Protein backbone atom coordinates (compact mmCIF):
# COMPACT_ATOMS: atom_id res chain seq x y z
CA UNK A 1 0.00 0.00 0.00
CA UNK A 2 1.26 3.43 -0.91
CA UNK A 3 0.82 5.25 2.41
CA UNK A 4 2.12 8.52 1.08
CA UNK A 5 -0.48 8.61 -1.66
CA UNK A 6 -3.19 7.74 0.81
CA UNK A 7 -2.16 10.61 3.04
CA UNK A 8 -2.60 13.03 0.17
CA UNK A 9 -5.97 11.59 -0.77
CA UNK A 10 -6.95 11.99 2.86
CA UNK A 11 -6.06 15.67 2.96
CA UNK A 12 -7.60 16.39 -0.45
CA UNK A 13 -11.02 16.63 1.22
CA UNK A 14 -11.88 19.99 2.85
CA UNK A 15 -13.88 18.44 5.71
CA UNK A 16 -10.99 16.16 6.58
CA UNK A 17 -8.58 19.07 6.53
CA UNK A 18 -10.93 20.97 8.84
CA UNK A 19 -11.04 17.96 11.19
CA UNK A 20 -7.23 17.83 11.26
CA UNK A 21 -7.04 21.52 12.09
CA UNK A 22 -9.65 21.13 14.82
CA UNK A 23 -7.96 18.16 16.44
CA UNK A 24 -4.50 19.70 16.09
CA UNK A 25 -5.27 22.10 18.94
CA UNK A 26 -6.85 19.58 21.34
CA UNK A 27 -7.87 15.94 21.71
CA UNK A 28 -11.57 15.54 20.95
CA UNK A 29 -14.21 12.82 20.94
CA UNK A 30 -16.05 11.92 17.72
CA UNK A 31 -19.16 13.65 19.10
CA UNK A 32 -17.29 16.86 19.86
CA UNK A 33 -15.74 16.85 16.38
CA UNK A 34 -19.12 16.20 14.72
CA UNK A 35 -20.72 19.08 16.64
CA UNK A 36 -18.44 21.45 14.69
CA UNK A 37 -19.88 20.41 11.33
CA UNK A 38 -23.29 20.62 9.71
CA UNK A 39 -22.49 17.30 8.04
CA UNK A 40 -24.40 14.22 9.21
CA UNK A 41 -22.73 12.32 12.05
CA UNK A 42 -22.12 9.12 10.00
CA UNK A 43 -20.32 11.21 7.36
CA UNK A 44 -18.01 12.65 10.02
CA UNK A 45 -17.46 9.12 11.35
CA UNK A 46 -16.44 8.03 7.87
CA UNK A 47 -13.95 10.91 7.62
CA UNK A 48 -12.53 10.00 11.05
CA UNK A 49 -12.17 6.41 9.90
CA UNK A 50 -10.21 7.43 6.78
CA UNK A 51 -7.97 9.79 8.75
CA UNK A 52 -7.32 7.07 11.33
CA UNK A 53 -6.62 4.41 8.67
CA UNK A 54 -3.97 6.51 7.02
CA UNK A 55 -2.60 7.28 10.47
CA UNK A 56 -3.09 11.02 10.41
CA UNK A 57 -5.28 10.63 13.51
CA UNK A 58 -4.75 8.42 16.52
CA UNK A 59 -7.39 7.10 18.90
CA UNK A 60 -6.82 7.22 22.64
CA UNK A 61 -9.12 5.52 25.13
CA UNK A 62 -9.94 7.63 28.15
CA UNK A 63 -12.45 5.82 30.38
CA UNK A 64 -15.50 5.17 28.23
CA UNK A 65 -14.62 7.85 25.69
CA UNK A 66 -12.37 7.60 22.66
CA UNK A 67 -10.41 10.76 21.96
CA UNK A 68 -8.84 11.63 18.63
CA UNK A 69 -5.43 13.28 18.41
CA UNK A 70 -3.20 14.11 15.45
CA UNK A 71 -0.21 11.95 14.64
CA UNK A 72 2.65 14.45 14.49
CA UNK A 73 4.98 12.09 12.62
CA UNK A 74 2.50 11.50 9.81
CA UNK A 75 1.63 15.16 9.56
CA UNK A 76 5.30 15.77 8.86
CA UNK A 77 5.07 13.51 5.79
CA UNK A 78 2.87 16.19 4.24
CA UNK A 79 5.64 18.74 4.76
CA UNK A 80 8.20 16.31 3.32
CA UNK A 81 6.64 16.16 -0.14
CA UNK A 82 7.53 19.81 -0.62
CA UNK A 83 11.21 18.94 -0.21
CA UNK A 84 11.93 17.71 -3.80
CA UNK A 85 10.11 20.79 -5.14
CA UNK A 86 12.24 23.04 -2.95
CA UNK A 87 15.38 21.19 -4.02
CA UNK A 88 14.44 21.79 -7.67
CA UNK A 89 14.12 25.54 -7.13
CA UNK A 90 17.28 25.64 -5.06
CA UNK A 91 19.23 23.98 -7.89
CA UNK A 92 17.71 26.37 -10.42
CA UNK A 93 18.57 29.41 -8.32
CA UNK A 94 22.11 28.13 -7.67
CA UNK A 95 22.50 27.88 -11.42
CA UNK A 96 21.07 31.39 -11.85
CA UNK A 97 23.59 32.74 -9.33
CA UNK A 98 26.56 31.14 -11.09
CA UNK A 99 25.35 32.17 -14.57
CA UNK A 100 24.95 35.79 -13.45
CA UNK A 101 28.32 35.83 -11.66
CA UNK A 102 29.99 34.76 -14.90
CA UNK A 103 27.97 37.41 -16.73
CA UNK A 104 29.09 40.04 -14.22
CA UNK A 105 32.75 38.99 -14.56
CA UNK A 106 32.55 39.26 -18.33
CA UNK A 107 31.03 42.73 -18.23
CA UNK A 108 33.51 44.23 -15.79
Amino acid at each position, binding site marked *: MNLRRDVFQAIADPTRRAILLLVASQALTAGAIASNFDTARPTVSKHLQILTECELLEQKQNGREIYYTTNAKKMKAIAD*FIEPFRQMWDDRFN*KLESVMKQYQAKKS
Partner: protein
Amino acid sequence: MELKTKINAEEGKQDLLITREFDLPLELLFKAFSEAELIEQWMGTKVLKLEFKKHGSWQFESTSPNGNMVVKMGGAIHDVIANQKIIRTFEMENTPYGVQLEITEFEKLTDNTSRINMHTIYESVKQRDEVLKLPFAQGINWAHNRLQDIVSKLK
Protein backbone atom coordinates in the same frame (compact mmCIF):
# COMPACT_ATOMS: atom_id res chain seq x y z
CA MET B 1 24.56 22.07 3.11
CA GLU B 2 21.58 24.14 4.07
CA LEU B 3 19.27 25.00 1.22
CA LYS B 4 19.07 28.71 0.59
CA THR B 5 15.67 28.45 -1.03
CA LYS B 6 12.71 28.48 1.33
CA ILE B 7 9.21 27.42 0.45
CA ASN B 8 6.18 28.27 2.50
CA ALA B 9 3.19 26.15 1.48
CA GLU B 10 0.54 26.15 4.16
CA GLU B 11 -1.72 23.17 4.58
CA GLY B 12 -5.02 23.52 2.74
CA LYS B 13 -4.12 26.70 0.84
CA GLN B 14 -3.93 27.15 -2.92
CA ASP B 15 -0.78 29.24 -3.02
CA LEU B 16 2.85 29.06 -2.05
CA LEU B 17 5.73 31.43 -1.45
CA ILE B 18 9.28 30.78 -2.60
CA THR B 19 12.02 33.02 -1.19
CA ARG B 20 15.72 33.06 -1.88
CA GLU B 21 18.63 35.41 -1.20
CA PHE B 22 21.33 35.86 -3.83
CA ASP B 23 24.93 37.05 -3.80
CA LEU B 24 24.02 39.28 -6.70
CA PRO B 25 23.18 42.96 -7.05
CA LEU B 26 19.46 43.53 -7.59
CA GLU B 27 19.92 44.64 -11.22
CA LEU B 28 21.75 41.42 -12.15
CA LEU B 29 19.13 39.25 -10.47
CA PHE B 30 16.38 41.00 -12.41
CA LYS B 31 18.37 40.71 -15.64
CA ALA B 32 18.44 36.91 -15.23
CA PHE B 33 14.66 36.95 -15.72
CA SER B 34 14.51 39.50 -18.49
CA GLU B 35 16.89 38.22 -21.18
CA ALA B 36 16.18 35.10 -23.21
CA GLU B 37 19.83 34.09 -23.50
CA LEU B 38 20.29 34.17 -19.71
CA ILE B 39 17.00 32.37 -19.00
CA GLU B 40 18.07 29.57 -21.35
CA GLN B 41 21.28 29.15 -19.37
CA TRP B 42 19.83 28.87 -15.87
CA MET B 43 16.43 27.34 -16.65
CA GLY B 44 17.88 24.88 -19.17
CA THR B 45 14.93 25.58 -21.48
CA LYS B 46 14.73 26.94 -24.98
CA VAL B 47 13.07 30.35 -25.15
CA LEU B 48 10.62 30.33 -28.07
CA LYS B 49 9.11 33.69 -27.29
CA LEU B 50 9.68 36.40 -24.72
CA GLU B 51 7.85 39.71 -24.96
CA PHE B 52 9.13 41.03 -21.68
CA LYS B 53 6.68 43.90 -21.17
CA LYS B 54 3.21 44.76 -19.93
CA HIS B 55 0.62 42.83 -22.00
CA GLY B 56 3.41 40.66 -23.40
CA SER B 57 3.63 36.90 -23.56
CA TRP B 58 6.19 34.12 -23.24
CA GLN B 59 6.76 30.52 -24.31
CA PHE B 60 9.57 28.16 -23.35
CA GLU B 61 10.29 24.63 -24.50
CA SER B 62 11.93 21.84 -22.50
CA THR B 63 13.19 18.64 -24.12
CA SER B 64 13.70 15.38 -22.25
CA PRO B 65 17.30 14.11 -21.99
CA ASN B 66 16.65 11.39 -24.61
CA GLY B 67 15.04 13.93 -26.91
CA ASN B 68 11.79 11.96 -27.15
CA MET B 69 9.51 14.35 -25.34
CA VAL B 70 9.01 18.04 -25.59
CA VAL B 71 7.07 20.06 -23.07
CA LYS B 72 6.01 23.59 -23.85
CA MET B 73 5.14 26.07 -21.17
CA GLY B 74 3.92 29.59 -21.54
CA GLY B 75 1.60 32.34 -20.52
CA ALA B 76 0.89 36.04 -20.50
CA ILE B 77 3.08 38.69 -18.99
CA HIS B 78 0.67 40.87 -17.10
CA ASP B 79 3.13 43.51 -15.95
CA VAL B 80 6.82 44.24 -15.60
CA ILE B 81 8.27 46.88 -13.27
CA ALA B 82 12.04 46.98 -13.80
CA ASN B 83 14.05 45.74 -10.81
CA GLN B 84 10.87 45.39 -8.76
CA LYS B 85 8.19 43.08 -10.00
CA ILE B 86 7.09 40.61 -12.68
CA ILE B 87 3.49 39.40 -12.84
CA ARG B 88 2.79 36.58 -15.26
CA THR B 89 0.72 33.47 -15.79
CA PHE B 90 2.29 30.04 -16.17
CA GLU B 91 0.83 27.01 -17.89
CA MET B 92 2.31 23.69 -18.97
CA GLU B 93 0.70 23.05 -22.32
CA ASN B 94 -1.33 19.85 -22.75
CA THR B 95 -1.21 18.94 -19.07
CA PRO B 96 -4.05 18.88 -16.54
CA TYR B 97 -2.23 21.18 -14.12
CA GLY B 98 -4.08 24.37 -14.94
CA VAL B 99 -2.87 27.94 -14.93
CA GLN B 100 -0.81 29.56 -12.21
CA LEU B 101 -0.53 33.24 -11.39
CA GLU B 102 3.03 34.17 -10.47
CA ILE B 103 3.91 37.40 -8.71
CA THR B 104 7.68 37.73 -8.44
CA GLU B 105 9.13 40.54 -6.34
CA PHE B 106 12.75 41.64 -6.35
CA GLU B 107 14.26 43.25 -3.32
CA LYS B 108 17.63 44.93 -2.74
CA LEU B 109 19.36 43.84 0.48
CA THR B 110 22.81 45.43 0.09
CA ASP B 111 24.77 46.69 -2.95
CA ASN B 112 25.79 43.10 -3.67
CA THR B 113 22.94 41.00 -2.34
CA SER B 114 19.28 40.73 -3.22
CA ARG B 115 16.21 38.66 -2.53
CA ILE B 116 13.43 37.20 -4.62
CA ASN B 117 9.89 36.48 -3.38
CA MET B 118 7.83 34.35 -5.76
CA HIS B 119 4.17 34.13 -4.86
CA THR B 120 2.38 31.45 -6.91
CA ILE B 121 -1.39 31.07 -6.84
CA TYR B 122 -2.97 27.89 -8.23
CA GLU B 123 -6.51 27.28 -9.39
CA SER B 124 -7.23 25.09 -6.35
CA VAL B 125 -5.63 23.48 -3.31
CA LYS B 126 -5.72 20.13 -5.08
CA GLN B 127 -3.93 21.52 -8.10
CA ARG B 128 -1.21 23.10 -5.98
CA ASP B 129 -0.57 19.82 -4.21
CA GLU B 130 -0.49 17.94 -7.55
CA VAL B 131 2.10 20.35 -8.94
CA LEU B 132 4.17 20.09 -5.76
CA LYS B 133 4.30 16.33 -6.22
CA LEU B 134 5.40 16.62 -9.86
CA PRO B 135 9.17 16.46 -9.35
CA PHE B 136 8.58 13.01 -7.84
CA ALA B 137 6.36 11.65 -10.52
CA GLN B 138 7.32 13.03 -13.87
CA GLY B 139 10.26 14.08 -15.96
CA ILE B 140 9.14 17.69 -15.92
CA ASN B 141 12.28 18.67 -14.16
CA TRP B 142 14.57 17.78 -17.02
CA ALA B 143 16.63 20.92 -16.73
CA HIS B 144 17.50 19.87 -13.21
CA ASN B 145 18.33 16.33 -14.33
CA ARG B 146 20.59 17.65 -17.06
CA LEU B 147 22.33 19.86 -14.56
CA GLN B 148 22.87 16.87 -12.31
CA ASP B 149 24.29 14.92 -15.26
CA ILE B 150 26.78 17.67 -15.98
CA VAL B 151 27.77 18.01 -12.34
CA SER B 152 28.18 14.27 -11.84
CA LYS B 153 30.43 14.04 -14.91
CA LEU B 154 32.67 16.69 -13.36
CA LYS B 155 33.21 14.59 -10.23
